[in-house]
């Protein structure tokens, strides 16, 4: 296990300035967001064992999870709250980066990576919203999809995301695949890049 500890230790600089350790320097928002992301993945992984990504079975599997599985209701609540926390913390982290000038050269690439992560998180939140297939999920997602039509090129995106309409079997499966495989994988890759660039551009805290 010392290998793991050393690997994690290598993500951080050997020394830091004492002043950089003041909480108000960054409020640790990026790290907090990553923590929420880890909780999301852990709770989501457990939810995978019960959820059925079919138009007929989705809602029934959620009911089963909530009423028959010990801790199932709690698990779903944790997953949902972690997603809220992730989005809010990412938003605040973005604000902090801008307002402390940490987006400026030589951190342009890292800013782009972070911005992409914010977009991916929003997209993951949106794809996850549909999965319970209750009235709230269905119509919130449908409304969101209608908003897409107002975008130039929105029709193409719409055709890809919901080939048979929101709640149709193919669309639900597509949202499911995006939510549990494609988006988390993309986010993990970008998160790794983000951390790497933070170190490369000097310091986990800005301006070592």
């Amino acid at each position, binding site marked *: 296990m010392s290998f793991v500890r050393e690997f994690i230790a290598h993500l951080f600089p050997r020394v830091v300035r004492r002043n950089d350790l003041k*909480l108000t320097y960054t409020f640790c928002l990026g790290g907090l967001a990553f923590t929420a992301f880890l*909780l999301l993945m852990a709770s989501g992984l457990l939810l995978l064992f019960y959820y059925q990504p079919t138009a007929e079975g989705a809602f029934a599997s959620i009911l089963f999870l909530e009423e028959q599985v010990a801790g199932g209701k709690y698990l779903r*609540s944790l997953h949902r709250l972690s997603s809220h*926390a992730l989005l809010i913390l990412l938003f605040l982290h973005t604000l902090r980066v801008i307002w402390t000038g940490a987006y400026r050269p030589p951190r342009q690439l890292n800013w782009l990576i972070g911005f992409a992560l914010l977009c991916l998180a929003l997209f993951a939140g949106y794809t996850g919203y549909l999965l319970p297939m209750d009235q*709230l999920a269905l119509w919130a997602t449908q409304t969101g999809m209608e908003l897409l039509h107002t975008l130039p090129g929105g029709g193409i995106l719409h055709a890809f995301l919901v080939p048979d309409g929101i709640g149709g079997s193919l669309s639900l499966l597509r949202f499911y695949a995006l939510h549990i495989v494609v988006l988390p994988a993309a986010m993990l890759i970008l998160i790794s890049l983000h951390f790497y660039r933070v170190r490369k551009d000097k310091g986990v805290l800005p301006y070592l």
Partner: protein
Amino acid sequence: MIDYVKSSPHFFRLIKRAFVAVCLILLVLAAVIPAPLQEAADFGRVPNPSKSAWFLLWTQELVSYSNYFVYLIVVMGLFFALLPWLPRTRPAERACWFPREQRVVNLLTLASFVLIVTLTIIAVFFRGENWSFVLPF
């Protein structure tokens, strides 16, 4: 002379505390706040109003004024994506909150933040049937 301290234990202690704090807060809140679950999806019954997910509600609120506001959203997105490449952006030499040399960016960011939060609050609490303005109490 810069006052350096070793990351272990000083920095790592801070990180661990932040990690544990967020985990505990979320784990406790999850027990207190249940996830809502309504009746099964029914294509024949459209809720009025039909609201999108909370983190997208500000876009719905904006588009409800005029479809052309979607371009404002696109422009905002592009503006923030390309922030480091704006003209007259100079390398940051020292970290500090609200640097004077990026005053315009600070103000635009603050305006965007206030706009997004305000629109979200309006859409969540003050929109009733047919997207009419209602008082939530």
